[in-house]
């Protein structure tokens, strides 16, 4: 792994629950394809390396609680973008691992290798009642998520890169000896394989996971968070120290000075109707100050993921003032069209794990076998 210098990502959904009150368009157009697309195109133009598409736990209340499917939003934007990586959030414990693996591999195809998986681990009652199961305790969710990531990774490798041979003389489209069974037996499910889609362009999609929710060895990018700025710096440094083979991306909420208002004033207006309960550190202020902050953060982390309170208001400020300043200071990795997310992250493209023969049956991890 060659560490990339300065990755910057953007979550495309308003981080503040009251964000919709300040959005450019009313809720009645919240689900229009144009709106979903425009945010991705704006993030690409601004020079972000990756965009994430959230899939929050369903909740009721006065604020926004609908959401288009995250993988589909990413896929929808794929043909009209060339540079930005598309990283949908997909919950790992309430979904069918075989479908998740196929959907993400397909996203990698339609984006020509710009896809990643942001793993969410949510054992909550609403999520699981939708699929007829009870809530999962944290330990069980941890094991279940580890199994889901492992089986997705196995399935992505089940077709070796050269499995499609198109040997006209022999009449063979595939070489069956290069297509493998995953033979996965986890604690609560088993999956035979092989995948129904050939190996994705990146071989393995980069997996982004919140630190502590998935065994670090199964992730490529560990998302670290802390409730305050100084704690975030310490946490990022610690996590990178303990996981030298993983990339560390720090999570930061922000409310920028915009539209003639200071960040703090905007925050007060947002908080007036809904309280913001976020696990992330919060920055409220101007672009120069944010650039200073990010400069400091990028010394201890490989990247940051920004969560703007109101995407329609904060993204133009980031695009016009913050990212150009970071570039001027040499703090950001370049953006290169038509390259894979793995390349951007400095990760080599691995050969299929099955290229040397079948793997042993996967041993299910236990909750205490990790961090």
């Amino acid at each position: 792994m060659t560490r990339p210098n300065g990755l910057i990502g953007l979550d495309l959904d308003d981080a503040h629950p009251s964000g919709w009150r300040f959005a450019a368009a009313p809720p009645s157009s919240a689900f229009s394809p144009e709106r979903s697309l425009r945010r991705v195109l704006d993030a690409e133009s601004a020079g972000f390396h990756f965009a994430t598409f959230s899939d929050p736990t369903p909740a009721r209340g006065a604020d926004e609680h609908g959401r288009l499917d995250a993988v589909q939003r990413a896929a929808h934007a794929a043909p009209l973008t060339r540079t930005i990586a598309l990283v949908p959030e997909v919950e790992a414990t309430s979904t069918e691992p075989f479908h998740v693996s196929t959907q993400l591999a397909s996203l990698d195809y339609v984006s020509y290798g710009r896809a990643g998986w942001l793993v969410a681990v949510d054992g909550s009652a609403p999520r699981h009642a939708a699929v007829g199961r009870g809530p999962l305790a944290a330990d069980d969710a941890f094991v279940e998520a580890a199994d889901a990531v492992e089986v997705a990774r196995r399935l992505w490798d089940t077709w070796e890169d050269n499995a499609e041979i198109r040997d006209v003389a022999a009449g063979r489209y595939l070489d069956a000896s290069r297509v493998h069974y995953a033979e996965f037996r986890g604690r609560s499910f088993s999956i035979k394989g092989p995948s129904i889609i050939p190996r994705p362009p990146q071989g393995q999609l980069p997996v982004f996971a919140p630190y502590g929710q998935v065994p670090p060895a199964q992730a490529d990018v560990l998302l670290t968070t802390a409730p305050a700025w100084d704690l975030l710096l310490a946490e990022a440094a610690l996590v990178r120290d303990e996981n030298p083979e993983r990339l560390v991306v720090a999570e930061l909420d922000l409310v920028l000075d915009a539209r003639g208002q200071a960040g703090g004033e905007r925050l007060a207006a947002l908080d007036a109707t809904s309280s913001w309960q976020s696990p992330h550190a919060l920055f409220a202020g101007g672009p120069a100050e944010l650039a200073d902050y990010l400069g400091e953060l990028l010394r201890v982390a490989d990247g940051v993921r920004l969560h703007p309170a109101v995407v329609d208001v904060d993204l133009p400020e980031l695009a016009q003032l913050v990212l150009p300043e970071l570039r001027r200071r040499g703090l950001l990795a370049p953006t290169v069209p038509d390259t894979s997310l793995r390349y951007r992250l400095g990760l080599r493209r691995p050969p299929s794990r099955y290229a040397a023969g079948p793997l042993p049956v996967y041993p299910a991890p236990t909750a205490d076998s990790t961090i």
Partner: protein
Amino acid sequence: MSIHPDFTPSRQLQFGVFFQGVNSGTVWKLPQSGSQTDFLSFRRVAQTAERGLFAAFFLGEGLRLREHLARVHELDVAGRPDSQTLLAALASVTHRIGLVATQNTTYNDPADLAHRLASLDLLSGGRAAWNVVTTDNAWTGANFRRGGYLDHADRYRHAEAFVEVALEIWDGWRPGALASDSRGSTTARRWLAPDSVRSVHHEGQHYTVDYEPRLPRSPQGRPVLFQAGDSPEGRDFAARRADVIFSAHPGLEDAIEFRRDLVSRTIRAGRRPESLKIMPASEFVLAETPAAAREKLAWLRELQIGPQQAIAYLEQFWGRPLGGYDPAGPLPDVEPAVETTSETRGSGFHGAKARELAASWRAEAAEKGWSILEFVRQRNARASRSFVGSYSEVADRLAEYARIGAVDGFNVSPWIVPSGLDDIVDRLVPELQSRGVYPTEYAGTTLREHLGLEVPASSWA
């Protein structure tokens, strides 16, 4: 000739395109045979179809890779993307064409699948459809959490309960409940009007769902429902629930009989017979002259069924390797390894009486003097759904279907990717237009509008 006194045909045809992605129908052996996974192939086919005013672009699904004699089947095209992910990508590079995803009711969770289909319907501006399929075998179940849990006899009951849950989820939001003005407001205004979401609770034999719908209705109300089952249960299911049948009856007599049957079943189910559209699967082999088309057909069949495929075809029934037999020689004299062929291996054959079949095939091939290769090609031709002829000849035949009202259109399976629609769009469509049986512009922006289907009423009205 009238189909049925209570049925008024539209006398128009629509085309859909079925991007097959697996099996022997797609020729991969030519230099111009393109990628089956590169997005550009899908994009090219969908955009060509849209240029030809096709109503729909259709993707299939198979949830386990086809096997042959206990290993992965090697001879045919295989490996394809998830249909909804691919269609979401196509939604941003097409503007009118409907996007049909085949999705299985057995190996999906109803809330998850209904949510994803609603999402695709919104992202495409009201162009999404779901081709409802149901499977029951444990062989496919080995890729899923619940394994093979469904009895063959239960599959339509299960599928129908599943569809009912989906319909409830799609009707879960009061229309117009999203706030239409929010700008700069810091007052306690609500994103969604109160009491505008109805939770869905379902407790059935096979699953329990407790779910709060997360999306509003789309511009076409909800996704269009396609259905392809051909058994009596499948037909009744379609008559009650489907908007479109993707049928297996493209021959004229067969199509008329199928339409009559479905008209009766639809009326019995309490629906207008015109509300269920029929689009048979079909293949087109076209050329300037009838003779040239026949030559092209022979060439195509050779490409689709080579010597290796012919042996493999027999092996599916014999249940044993037959590699030692000469494709140019007579049918194998050895007996099949089993009395009855085993559970499906993704090939569509199961439960055949193998030994009886082998004996009758041997006799037929001997009588006609056919080799293995000739025999298998003949069988394939018999099962064929092809329209073969010159452009004007085939257009005349299709116009006859429209005049009688035998079908509402055809779901075209191109036999080569990505150029397989070019002659249909460039040559056949204008012939049909000049006969007044094919649209000259899209009827609207949604799939329902293209197909002449009504927007389903909301239960909140």
